[in-house]
């Protein structure tokens, strides 16, 4: 697989790089959390690496659970379904909401209003 993706990082430095996401950006995201005062180098490295593993894990799980195997595609709905169905990905349901048709939404809105009117 990696043969088809020439890795630029390996060319720039002699030693094999262990992470590809920019550490500085990860630190910025971590520091945006108000309670965090400081982060040591190892913790920063581990979080960056964990984020890469997470991206892989989310993509592979969604692809394997989704219907895209025949069509060879990974779509948004595969991700939204994984977020809902897999417990470890539940924390993503807020940013990966399931898409519903406007008419279904309006219908459920109507139903809710009717229920309220019943009171």
């Amino acid at each position: 697989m990696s043969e088809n993706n020439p890795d630029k990082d390996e060319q720039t430095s002699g030693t094999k790089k262990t992470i590809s996401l920019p550490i500085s950006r990860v630190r910025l995201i971590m520091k945006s959390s108000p309670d965090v005062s400081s982060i040591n180098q190892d913790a920063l490295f581990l979080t960056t690496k964990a984020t890469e593993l997470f991206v892989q894990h989310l993509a592979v799980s969604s692809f394997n659970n989704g219907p895209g195997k025949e069509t060879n595609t990974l779509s948004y709905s595969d991700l939204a379904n994984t977020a809902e169905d897999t417990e470890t990905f539940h924390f993503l349901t807020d940013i990966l909401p399931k898409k519903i048709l406007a008419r279904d939404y309006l219908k459920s809105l109507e139903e809710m209003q009717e229920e309220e009117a019943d009171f």
Partner: protein
Amino acid sequence: MAERPEDLNLPNAVITRIIKEALPDGVNVSKEARRAISQAASVFVLYATSCANNFAMKAKRKTLNAGDVLAAMEEMEFERFLEPLREALEVYKKGQKGKKEVSEQKRKDKEKKAESSENDKSREDEEEEEEHMEEEEPADVENEAEEEEVEN
């Protein structure tokens, strides 16, 4: 602190590459899916940070350390990441140590030379240049990531 909201995004090109490498060859990942994974990754960082920070606070420490991050992974039920993370940290630490030893050695060599031949100025200058180059290397790697982002 982040000045623009997009500062809290991870570079799309790198995220896309990680996704492509993880999936079988030839899988088409929709633009929407890529964007969603990238956002999910940012949320993951925040969630992990907050969990790790709880462990640090419990232990009355102000600085997040490797143990806090690993404990956070367990709490988030990403135990599957623990082994690869420990291995990666090992490699990373060795790399850091190697770098340290090299620069330490250089410093000692330099001191020795400075002692033995104080008037040999040209040689010292040469060494200084070498050190500058070494310092620039990590910055290059960062720049590359930034450049990739611009491409998209």
